């Protein structure tokens, strides 16, 4: 989350990927760093360690959302 905000502050379009368990923490960090609306996309939890196939399926599902969010940033 913090990485996404720091990159966004550099003027580079960024979307933070945040799992559902850490979504409230993402909100907190975004607010505390003064960018409450920084773009983010929700992932299921957990992702790490769940196997290649599952991670590929998650990636396929969220890729359009990431692109959509980036379009919103750059548009």
């Amino acid at each position, binding site marked *: 989350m913090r990485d996404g905000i720091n990159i966004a502050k550099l003027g580079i379009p960024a979307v933070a990927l945040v799992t559902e*368990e850490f979504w409230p923490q993402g909100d907190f960090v975004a607010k505390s760093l003064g960018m409450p609306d920084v773009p983010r996309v929700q992932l299921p*939890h*957990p992702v*790490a*360690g*769940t*196997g*290649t*196939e*599952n991670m590929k399926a998650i990636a396929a599902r969220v890729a359009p959302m990431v692109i959509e969010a980036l379009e919103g940033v750059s548009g």
Partner: protein
Amino acid sequence: MADFLTAESEADALEDLHNRDLTDGLPVVIPTPERVSRMVLASGQDADMVLGTMGPGHGIATVEKVAIAAVMAGCLPDYMPVVVAATKAVIDPVFDLTEMQATTHCTAPLIIVNGPARLSCGPISSSYGALGPGHRANASIGRALRLAMMNIGGARPGSSDMALLGHPGKFTYCLAEDEENSPFPPLHVSLGFQEEDSVVTVIGAEAPHSVLHSGDGDDPDNYKGLLDMLAIGVANEATNNAMLTKGSATIVLNPEHALVLEKAGLNREDTAEEIHKRCRFENKRLNKLSPGFAPKTQGTRDAFNGPEQLLILMAGGSGLYSMVMPSWCAGAHKNSPSSVVVESEFFCEVPGLASLADAS
């Protein structure tokens, strides 16, 4: 009846309690007669009912004296049935309270709450940071037991509580099990209680030790790494569990790790058995490390009598870390865990009394 102290103000009363070594070093709520009466009322029991004696000072734990500890700790009256159950649990002779309080080891009663009292006497957290700051019931229930152990049991650092350093869980050490999300039956059901019961289980516990495991969904044997790591954490050769043996220990699985075990087809008993099997040491190695505690014979020695000595529950946020708590493993009963049903059906509150007590 408890003795009465008097002071000009609450601030003076607090200083007096500190000076008399009646606190844990932090500020306490002054146990005025009104506040204590309200706490006694919440227990639904008579003030002078004796729960037992608490060593090493062998003070008599009446409901009123436990209520004083609960007030001082900052408990709401709602919590009182759990505080009473926890007190009864440590008083059970199998818990070896006198010896445990006096030992040089770093041990504290970990309070585990199961059943409906998790909500009705709380809420007692079983989620993020349940053993850390920010949860009133967890913080004050554990603290109430500690203040009872000090002020009724007489444990004082350096004179009657000889823990060389102690650990932060001696201030408070209480959590609930996350029954709703656990793949296993509630701990108290596995211990033989009815699901609708509320049960407090106390177990002597070192500070929580983190056990790291990052799963690999592509490896069907990956769960074995988790079992290995839990075993290393809970009874490595530096622990009393490995060296003194035959004591219990606690394993708090985080939801992610519990899921790994469930997917591997392991229930609570299977998991305990697998960890038990991994806590077996070569006598030769134990002798090399600490000859005073190691058997002189050849062969191997188990840390635990059996899998039933491993208390496994699920709590905390979801992630990479579970927690293990080795134990002291001494005393006549090896400081065995003790479970007591919470008698919350006696809980009593008089309308209007709360505001009366607050106004006093």
